[in-house]
């Protein structure tokens, strides 16, 4: 009997456990297995195998029974998701989290966008990837919001290079101090209207630039990408269905198969992590509790180190739910800041317009990318009445205009002879929100989800700083669009709730001082040295860059540190 138990424990024991298989978890899996660790990757959702499980990837528009629309029955069963933007359609609804899968409580409205399957949101993201600079890492210290970051750009720069080379990032070397260049594959092409607007900005402003977006697409694959089984991006721009070519970076196409090749990875889908087990006597985390999603059975797995990569807010949930007599308020939460200082990017404002020049030019084909205007507010000094700033996306193109008036043969003639319309252009803001104690998540004391895990309560909202920033964006871009000669300019504040902005961060922030932060400069818990958090939960502040590249760099860096520390016997 005694032997049996030992064998059973052995079977449940690994060198490392990674919670979550999305963008950051994929990197943790790749790095840890690559360094020889037997690694268990726990994923709450189903498996999604590269290519095989992209059922709509190659369907033509006419092959969708309802041409993209979601049938009424399915909408009725998922009233919340069906009101959300974009992803809930016939081509991608199989990657959307169903209503009821994980209910949560909105003390303040929050549109929580999730991807629960192997690969997480790496299948669904828009693939924009920019580095941070010291203007971002030094921001809190300079402006006095949040706490000082425990690292600077130089600490992360080599790791940015490391992950960029493997993931494949396209872009131009733009030489901007506040948006450092990376290891780029050739950039994708700008359209004429983008190039025109870029010139107009350069002509009218000293402090602003527009560049081609930096994106995780293989414009010219290198050997390391072919080794991953990935091929050149074909410009289908159907990426959210999953890309059969591996043209864009996803965990499914890149990091997870790489980790699997080492023979060291055990991937366990349908495994909802409930909490991390802390052993008071040993003074360390010893493993995790998992609810099997199919059987609802509670299981335990053990390991020497644990990487938490469940995506920012789920990582908060897991840690808040990991209580013990040593950590009554959540694992590592001596400071009491766990779950607090949640921040995100403000995507509320956008602006569209038309351009009636360059009418002899158009575009041909499709692009999965767009242009990018790096932050220009408060970069070198505080110059506005709001803190920090915003970046912006920009894109333009021409469409065919079909006259749908009338009936019969005339109507048909009109449809068969569309005319090329004017250029349509649009821009959208990506503003930095300031991490505040009053923006937080907690766990409900009684309400549980279908797995018996407490429901999360959201108390996250915009503030005055965000409102001022929205105004400024709309004013500045109206001015920039006017100077460029665009017409029919339409500024819009969508008033969408937080969460719609898809870049939530914080709650488990890094910092120098264990009294005010949870993680040290290696993404390691101050108070529980064998637990590492390297997804968006670790972020001390949010900057304006799309965040995922930074999570990748943090993960690779922390994995390297963790394994070295393990070898030294420190953890």
């Amino acid at each position, binding site marked *: 009997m005694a032997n049996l138990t030992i064998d059973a424990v052995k079977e449940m024991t690994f060198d490392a456990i990674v919670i979550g298989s999305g963008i950051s978890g994929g990197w943790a899996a790749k790095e840890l297995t690559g360094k020889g660790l037997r690694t268990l990757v726990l994923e709450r959702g*189903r498996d*999604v195998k590269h*290519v*095989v*499980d*992209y*059922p*709509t*990837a*190659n*369907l*033509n*528009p*006419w092959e969708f*029974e*309802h*041409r993209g*629309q979601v*049938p*009424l*029955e*399915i909408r009725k*069963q998922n009233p919340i998701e069906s009101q959300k933007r974009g992803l809930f359609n016939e081509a991608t*609804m*199989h*990657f959307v989290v169903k209503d009821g899968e994980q209910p949560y409580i909105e003390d303040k409205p929050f549109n929580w966008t999730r991807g629960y*399957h192997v690969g997480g949101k790496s299948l669904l993201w828009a693939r924009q990837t920019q580095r941070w600079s010291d203007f971002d890492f030094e921001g809190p210290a300079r402006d006095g919001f949040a706490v000082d970051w425990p690292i600077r750009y130089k600490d992360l720069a080599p790791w940015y290079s490391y992950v960029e080379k493997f993931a494949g990032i396209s872009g131009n070397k733009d030489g901007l101090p506040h948006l450092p260049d990376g290891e780029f594959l050739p950039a*994708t*092409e*700008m*359209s*004429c209207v*983008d*190039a025109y607007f870029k010139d107009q900005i350069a002509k009218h402003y000293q402090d602003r630039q527009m560049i081609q977006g930096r994106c995780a697409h293989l414009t010219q694959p290198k050997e390391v990408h072919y080794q991953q089984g990935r091929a050149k991006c*074909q*410009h*289908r721009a159907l990426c959210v269905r999953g890309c*059969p070519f591996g043209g864009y970076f996803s965990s499914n196409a890149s990091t997870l198969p790489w980790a699997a090749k080492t023979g060291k990875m055990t991937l366990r889908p349908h495994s909802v992590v409930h909490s991390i087990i802390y052993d008071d006597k040993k003074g360390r985390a010893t493993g995790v509790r998992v609810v099997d999603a199919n059987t609802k059975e509670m299981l335990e797995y053990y390991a020497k180190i644990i990487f938490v990569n469940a995506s920012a807010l789920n990582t908060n949930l897991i840690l808040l739910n990991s209580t013990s007599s040593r950590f009554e308020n959540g694992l590592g939460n001596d400071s009491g800041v766990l779950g607090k200082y949640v921040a995100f990017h403000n995507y509320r404002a956008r602006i569209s317009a038309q351009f009636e020049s360059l*009418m*002899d*030019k*158009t*575009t*041909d*084909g*499709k*692009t999965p990318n767009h242009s990018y205007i790096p932050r220009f507010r408060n970069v070198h000094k505080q110059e506005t009445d709001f803190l920090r700033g915003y970046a912006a996306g920009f894109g333009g193109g021409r469409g065919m205009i*079909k006259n*749908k008036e009338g*009936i*019969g*043969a005339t*109507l*048909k*003639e009109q*449809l068969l*002879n*569309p*005319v*090329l319309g004017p250029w349509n252009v649009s821009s959208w803001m990506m503003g930095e929100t300031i991490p505040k104690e009053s923006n937080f998540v907690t766990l409900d004391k009684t309400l549980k989800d279908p797995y018996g895990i407490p429901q999360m309560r959201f108390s996250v909202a915009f503030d005055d700083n965000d409102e001022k920033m929205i105004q400024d964006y709309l004013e500045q871009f109206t001015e920039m669009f006017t100077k460029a000669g665009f017409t029919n300019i339409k500024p819009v504040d969508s008033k969408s709730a937080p969460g719609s902005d898809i870049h939530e961060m914080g709650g488990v922030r890094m910092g120098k001082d264990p009294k005010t932060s949870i993680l040290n400069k290696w993404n390691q818990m101050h108070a529980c040295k064998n637990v590492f958090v390297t997804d968006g939960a670790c972020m001390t502040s949010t900057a304006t860059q799309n965040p995922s590249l930074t999570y990748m760099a943090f993960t690779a860096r922390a994995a390297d540190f963790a394994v070295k520390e393990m070898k030294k016997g420190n953890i």
Partner: protein
Amino acid sequence: MKRRVALKNLALSFGGLMALPTWAENWSEQSLVAVQAYLTPDQEALLAEITETILPTTDTPGAKDLKIHLFVHKMISDCYEPEVQANVVKGLETAEQLAKQTYAKTFATCDTKQREEILTTMEISIDPNWASFYKLVKDLTLQGYLTSEYYLTNHTNYKMIPGHFYGCVPAPTPQAQLQK
């Protein structure tokens, strides 16, 4: 056509992707079974005449050739509330009644001009049910047409894999567009 065959082969080599979506395990099979078709064969035949009136066969295929009425029927069956479905049934009856009252003929035996007049009467009617019936049927007919394999492959430069993006090419002149 060759290109499509190549594409299918490519897709197959990628692991049988052309199989219709099963929505994996994430969505229950049951929820995906289409709701019962709710029009009788006669009603469906009338719907076919109406879609054909909106987009008739000329020197190119029309709605009936492209079976657009089946698409319209399916959409209304699967994607719309019972109230909307009921209004479609009523709208079909109305079209038939108008044909009888005005021309003493069935809708199907009216000539093109008469049919167009009946539908236009409904389109601009102050009865919101008539107007919304016609708007829905017309919108779905156009949607079915503009996303059909025929339209996309013959009248646009639709390609699943263009393999390129050129940001700045000469725009076709209006004349060139007309000749296309």
